[in-house]
């Protein structure tokens, strides 16, 4: 159901922004061509921002805490989700939207954990947008059979640049940077760090094999975003998982 966006109760709706009629008819009445300047003064990405606001309203009304997870390909987003589901199962109802350019593999991994997941394939685009998330959220709702969600995880397409420009209507934005990627990533990808509320340094079990300067990455990240929270987590050894779960529960209840 979708009162917020007025899209009716059909689950197959697409909020097409196309005009119902073409902008002008050929061979018309024959008028005078005029040039004019239209003042707009709006964001370049207004369509995305409007749909994101709609999503946030949806989530708020349903009491769902939405989390957008952003990282480079392979930083450990899906693995972290699998471990998070293990830790929270039975206590907290989780749903997942999996962004991917082409495949269904990540959603399949999540479903194996017994959690509803919908794959959002962007068909080439390197980021999720809020319109795609809106559609995905409705199809996820459909598969819940009336069960309500506490947390909606949205795993973005593996990319540390483009996703940071697109608000999805989330309440929490988490950026993962894994140890093998190197400690210089915050300064190279400032937009991701500036727009996130939490940085997870992932794969910390590998720190002994890399010249990874933990102090430097934290210092750089905080210089870009002084209110950023930072956690160190290894999904492999479980180190730092407790802090991450505590962080989630704290956010959920505040």
């Amino acid at each position, binding site marked *: 159901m979708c009162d917020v966006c007025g899209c009716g109760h059909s689950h197959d709706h697409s909020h097409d*922004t196309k*005009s119902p009629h073409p*902008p*002008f008819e050929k061979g*018309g*009445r*024959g*008028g*005078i*061509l*005029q*040039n*004019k*300047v*239209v*003042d*707009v*003064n*709006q*964001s*370049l*990405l*207004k*369509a*995305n921002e409007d749909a994101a606001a709609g999503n946030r309203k949806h989530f708020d009304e349903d009491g769902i805490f939405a989390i957008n997870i952003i990282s480079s390909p392979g930083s450990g987003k899906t693995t972290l989700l699998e471990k998070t589901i293990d830790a929270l199962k039975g206590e907290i109802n989780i749903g997942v939207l999996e962004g991917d350019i082409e495949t269904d593999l990540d959603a399949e991994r999540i479903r194996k954990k017994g959690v509803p997941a919908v794959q959002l394939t962007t068909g080439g*685009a*390197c*980021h999720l*947008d809020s319109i795609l998330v809106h559609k995905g959220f409705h199809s996820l709702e459909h598969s819940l059979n009336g069960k309500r969600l506490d947390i909606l995880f949205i795993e973005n397409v593996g990319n540390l*640049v*483009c996703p*940071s*420009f*697109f608000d999805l209507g989330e309440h929490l934005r988490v950026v993962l940077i894994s140890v093998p990627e190197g400690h210089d990533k915050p*300064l190279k990808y*400032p*937009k991701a760090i500036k727009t996130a509320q939490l940085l997870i340094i992932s794969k910390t079990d590998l720190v002994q094999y890399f010249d990874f300067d933990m102090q430097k990455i934290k210092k*750089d990240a*905080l*210089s*870009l*975003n*002084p209110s950023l929270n930072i956690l160190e987590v290894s999904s492999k050894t479980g180190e730092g998982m407790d802090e991450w779960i505590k962080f989630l529960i704290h956010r959920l209840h505040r």
Partner: protein
Amino acid sequence: MHEVSIAIGMVKELTRIALENNAKKVTGVKLKIGKMSGIVADSLIFAFDAVKLEHPLMSSAAISIEEVPLVYECNTCKKTFETDNLSFQTCPFCGSYSLKLLSGEEMHIENVEIETEEESHV
């Protein structure tokens, strides 16, 4: 090259604006892009000029970009200063860490130049 993503979003916005204003053609668009927006102006121009070709409504639109400098106001001494340094700053006058960003994050369409066909009243 995330500027391509931005350019595609921009074309959608321009299409909407053009339809709302009964435009026959979009002939120009003026943007304001902050130094700290994360968008490289030249890359966006390049991307837009490629993407627009697929859209007859704006295939000849000229894009112009005004770059907006990074300006902070110090919450402690109330002075303002401009900088090129994108990472977190301290006030050059009093050393305070408490700063307010006044400009530099903009990614705005300021105006759009269109061609309309008004019905002749003669």
